[in-house]
C-alpha cells in the first residue's frame, strides 16, 4: 500500500498546525515522526486517518484520494492507535480487541473473528489479562490493548500516536520488535509519532523531523539524528554516537540557551 501525503495543511480555528506537509510511504517501511510538543505529529496522524479533515492538500491511498474512500473501506486499510483508552464504560480486553474486527464483519462477530482476536492477544502477551476490564489495567497494558486492537484490524498502514510511551523498556523493545516483524513479514507500513529518539533511531527506516507544522528533515536515522538537527528541532545540545550497528544513539545533554527560532539571547 502506497501512501502519499501532498501539501497537507490543517489548523484549529485560525491557528495553523500543519503547513504544507508532503511525504510518501512505501510498503515494508517504518516511518517515525519526531519533533517537540505541539509540532503537529498527532494532528498529522489524525489527518492521514481522516479523523480530522485537512484544510488543503490531499492524502492518496494507492493513488486514490482518501476523501473518496468510504469510512469502512478506509478502516480496513488503516488502523490508528490513539495516545490512550477513552472508554466511557469499561469493557474487557477481549471485547476491546474484538472491536478491531468491526471493519471486517457486519453487526456481529464470527468464529474466525474470535480466532483472529486470540491470535493478536497472544502476539502482544495479553493472555493473562484478556478477561479483565480495561480500566483495571496499567497505562502500559492499556497501550498494548490498543495496539492489539489495531492489529486485529489487519491494516495495510498502521498509524501510532505515541503508542509505546507508557511501556517499560522490555515491553517497549518487545512491541517494537513485534511491529517491525509484522511490517516486514506482511509488507505493510507503519507511521509512528514518537518521543524516544533512541527507539526511533533503532527501528525506523526513515525519520521525519517536524517543527511548527513543517518538515525540517527527512531521511534515515543516521542522517536525521545529527547534533545540528537536534539543536535545530528541539533546541537541545545532544551527544550523538554511532553504535556498532551503524545506528545513532542520542544522549541529550543540556538545553541550548539560544533558541534558534526565537533569537532571544538570555543574558544576565
Amino acid at each position: 500500500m502506497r501512501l502519499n501525503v501532498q501539501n497537507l495543511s490543517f489548523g484549529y480555528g485560525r491557528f495553523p498546525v500543519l503547513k504544507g506537509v508532503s511525504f510518501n510511504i512505501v510498503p515494508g517501511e517504518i516511518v517515525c515522526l519526531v519533533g517537540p510538543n505541539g509540532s503537529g505529529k498527532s494532528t498529522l496522524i489524525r489527518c492521514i486517518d481522516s479523523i480530522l479533515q485537512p484544510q488543503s492538500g490531499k492524502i492518496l491511498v494507492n493513488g486514490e484520494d482518501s476523501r473518496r474512500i468510504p469510512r469502512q473501506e478506509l478502516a480496513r486499510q488503516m488502523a490508528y492507535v490513539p495516545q490512550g483508552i477513552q472508554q466511557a464504560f469499561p469493557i474487557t480486553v477481549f471485547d476491546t480487541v474484538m472491536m478491531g474486527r468491526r471493519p471486517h464483519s457486519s453487526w456481529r462477530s464470527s468464529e474466525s473473528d474470535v480466532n483472529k482476536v486470540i491470535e493478536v492477544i497472544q502476539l502482544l502477551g495479553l493472555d493473562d489479562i484478556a478477561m479483565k476490564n480495561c480500566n483495571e489495567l496499567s497505562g502500559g497494558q492499556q497501550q498494548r490493548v490498543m495496539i492489539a486492537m489495531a492489529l486485529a484490524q489487519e491494516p495495510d498502514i498502521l498509524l501510532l500516536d505515541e503508542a509505546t510511551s507508557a511501556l517499560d523498556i522490555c515491553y517497549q523493545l518487545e512491541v517494537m520488535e513485534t511491529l517491525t516483524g509484522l511490517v516486514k513479514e506482511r509488507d505493510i507500513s507503519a507511521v509512528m509519532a514518537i518521543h524516544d529518539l533512541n527507539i526511533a533511531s533503532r527501528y525506523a527506516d526513515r525519520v521525519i523531523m517536524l517543527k511548527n507544522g513543517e518538515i525540517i528533515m527527512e531521511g534515515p536515522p543516521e542522517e536525521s539524528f545529527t547534533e545540528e538537527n537536534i539543536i535545530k528541532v528541539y533546541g537541545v545540545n545532544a551527544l550523538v554516537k554511532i553504535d556498532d550497528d551503524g545506528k545513532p544513539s542520542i544522549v541529550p545533554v543540556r538545553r541550548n540557551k539560544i533558541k534558534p527560532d526565537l533569537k532571544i539571547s538570555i543574558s544576565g
Partner: protein
Amino acid sequence: MNQSSDTTFKPDIIKATALKKEQRKANLKKWRFIIILIPIMILLMAINAQTGSANLSIGDVFTTILHKFFPDTFASVSDMVNKIIWQLRLPRVLMAMLAGIGLAGAGCVMQSSLKNPLADPLLLGISSSAGFGATLVIILGVGILSGTAGIITSAFFFAILVSLVIIGLSSFKGAKPVTMLLIGLAMTYLFQSLTQLLQYQSSAEAAKASMMWMVGDLSGVEWSEVAILFPIILVSCGLLFWKSWDLNILSSGDETAKSLGINVFRLRVFLMAVASLVTAAIVSFIGVIAFVGLVCPHICRMFIGSDNRFLFPASCLAGAVLLLCADCVARTVLSPVILPPGVITGLLGAPFFIQLVMRQRRELI
C-alpha cells in the same frame, strides 16, 4: 536486520483454547442473566394481573388468558373475571412492561452514546416538553385538541419536536455529547418555565390536572394505547439492538470509532433520535416514570459489564421487571388506594440502587 528473524510468532494452542473457553463461559454467564429475567418478568406480570380489589388466583389469570386462544381446552372462569383480566388488568400490565422495556433501553443507549453515566432518557427535554404539550391542551384546549387523545397527541408532538430541535442544534456543533447534554438541559428549563407560566395563569383545577398528568400513572390504560405503543417499542428496540456493537465502539471514544470505520455523527444522531422517539411515546401515554431509565442499565452493568450487546437486552428486561414491581407495590401497599407507580420507582429504586452502589467492589466507570 537482526530484529525480524527472532520475532517469528508461535501461538500457544493450549492457552488459546483456554482463552476461547473462558470467553465463551463469560458470554454464557451474561446470557444466563438475561434469560433468567424473562420468567421473572412473566411471573411479575401474572402477579400484577392477579392482585387488585377482585380476589383472583394466578391460576385464574392463566386460565382466562389461555381461554381466549384455546376456548375448547380451557374453560372460562367467569364472565366477570374475563372482563377484569382482559379489559382492566392486561392493558395495564402490558403497558408497564412496554414502558419499562422502552425507558430502560433508551437509558442504556443514551448513556453509552453520550458517554455519560448520568444520562437519562428524559434528558433531551422530553419530560418537560411533553408536559408543556399536555398542559397546553389541558388549559387552553378546544375542539379536536381537547380530551385524552388531544393531550396525548400534543404531548407527543412537543416531545418529538423539542428532541429534534436539540439533536438538530447540536448537529451544527458536530453532535458532540456535551453539546447535546447542555442544549437538552437548557430546553428542559425553558419548557419547565413555559409550563409554569401557563399553570400560573390558569385556574387551580386546570393547574392540578396538568401537574397530575406529569406523574407517571398506569390507571385507565386502554388496549388502543397498548396497540400503538407496542410496534413503536418493538421496532425501535430492534433497531437499537442491531446497533449495539457499534454503540460499544462509540462509547470507546469518537476518534477510535472513526478510525474503525464508524460514521460517528450519523450513528449518534440516529441512536438519540430512536431513543427519544421511544421515550416521547411512553411519556405521552403514561407521564413521567422517573429513575427506570437511569438506574436499570447501571444495575445490569454491575452483573454483566458494559458490553451493549448484552447490556441492552438485559436493561430492557430489567426495566420491565422494575416497573412491574413498582406497579405491584403501588397497588397493594395502601390498598384500596392506588398510588402512581411513577412515584414508587423513585421511592423504592433509589435506596435499592444506593445499596448496590455502596456494595460494589469493582469500579464501574
